[in-house]
């Protein structure tokens, strides 16, 4: 299935992009992040990130569906 990924902050810098689409053969955010972590040398562990699916905060265990948009959110540092 096709997944759209959004990158923010350090993850965007390391990926060299703010978004991309990928074809994946599973529905697990954890597995997707593990692959991205390896591709881009992301420093964070999955458990330290929040997950947003279709622009809503979602549980780490939420299963992805074809066409979903997902973002892995580093600890927030506004203000």
């Amino acid at each position: 299935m096709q997944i759209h990924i959004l990158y923010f902050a350090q993850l965007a810098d390391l990926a060299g992009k703010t978004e991309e689409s990928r074809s994946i053969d599973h529905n697990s955010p954890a597995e997707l992040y593990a692959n991205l972590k390896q591709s881009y040398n992301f420093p964070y562990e999955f458990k330290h990130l929040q997950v947003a699916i279709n622009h809503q905060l979602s549980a780490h265990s939420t299963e992805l569906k074809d066409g979903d948009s997902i973002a892995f959110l580093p600890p927030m540092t506004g203000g």
Partner: protein
Amino acid sequence: MNFSLTDQAIEPTSLRRKLLSLSAGAYCSYEGWVRNHNEGKIVKELHYSGYPQLAPSIANTILKEAKEKFHIEDAAVVHRTGALTTGDIAVWVGVTAHHRGDTFLACRYIIDNVKHRLPIWKKEIYADDTQAWIESNHCGCADPKNLEHPHQTHP
């Protein structure tokens, strides 16, 4: 909706005007400024990156919580994105209430939660042109759990 992300300079005077109410006896605001140093380094710019499709719902949840926890009339938050230089206002919070006590408590509750929960990230650009994403807010914040209103009785 009393929240916005903006890449334009924050103007507290006009934002304050939007909160004016004849039934409010108190107004409290917070301005987060870009300072010229952090942890021993000279800071010349801050770059804020936000998630505009998610930030409004988080901000409105925080504002709703503040209205439930404290006796306030209204509250608003504006956060900058993009490149800011020293002295710029990065974030503004305004709160009105019948009495001053709740404005202070609610204002602090809102800014502390904005710093930890709003999907915005801060990169510091230093005088030597190195840069770093800030990984946590060492801001002297109170634990939001300790900011419950001492006389909270209303829903």
